[in-house]
């Protein structure tokens, strides 16, 4: 079975600064996907960024980028130029390529952006 671990229950950052959220996972699979989801106070789950394990290049979406280290099974999220609207719970998630889109989530990191 796959497990996803987010070791930082809470983090805070000043507006306009950069913050990195950690995620590690455990799997014996070679082909899989990794995701970061954002859940603001509205509790709507929003996909932030995705990474295919077969791609060596780290995914980037505007101010959001990942540092994917396949050998270390690490998948951290970097948020640059943090904005107040980035305040949310962030979940790391794993999916086997053949699992029919069944996601395994970490426990989440609550990020607070301070003005």
């Amino acid at each position, binding site marked *: 079975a796959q497990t996803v671990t987010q070791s930082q229950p809470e983090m805070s950052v000043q507006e306009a600064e950069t913050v990195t959220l950690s995620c590690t996972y455990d799997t014996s699979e070679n082909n899989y996907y990794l995701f970061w989801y954002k859940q603001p106070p509205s509790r*709507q789950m929003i996909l932030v960024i995705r990474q295919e394990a077969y791609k060596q290049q780290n995914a980037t979406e505007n101010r959001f980028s990942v540092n994917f280290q396949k050998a270390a099974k690490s998948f951290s999220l970097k948020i640059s130029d943090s904005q107040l609207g980035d305040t949310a719970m962030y*979940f790391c998630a794993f999916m086997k*390529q053949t699992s*029919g*889109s069944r996601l395994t989530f970490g426990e989440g990191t609550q990020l607070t952006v301070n003005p």
Partner: protein
Amino acid sequence: SQTIHQWPATLVQPVGSPLSLECTVEGTSNPNLYWYRQAAGRGLQLLFYSVGIGQISSEVPQNLSASRPQDRQFILSSKKLLLSDSGFYLCAQSPSLFSGRAEEQFFGPGTRLTVL
């Protein structure tokens, strides 16, 4: 684009009462559908998923059940609620495997269930 509706948004029910939560999807055909539960301050736990009408797979044993009577309708039910059923229930959909990008899941707005 696809839209996911969940009804009701909030629900307070007594222990032992029945439950029916509804999820409907627009803008896509033959999606994979999912029910997740999120306890307060915790991550999401997959409860059920469905790859087609009448096809339901259960991830964890519990007193909940799911049904898919139509292609874009997914229902979560219980005959007798327990206190431990309280939580935030999220419905999600992803394109079918034959549509490509089946790995992307999109979530509905959720239902907050409180069992007293």
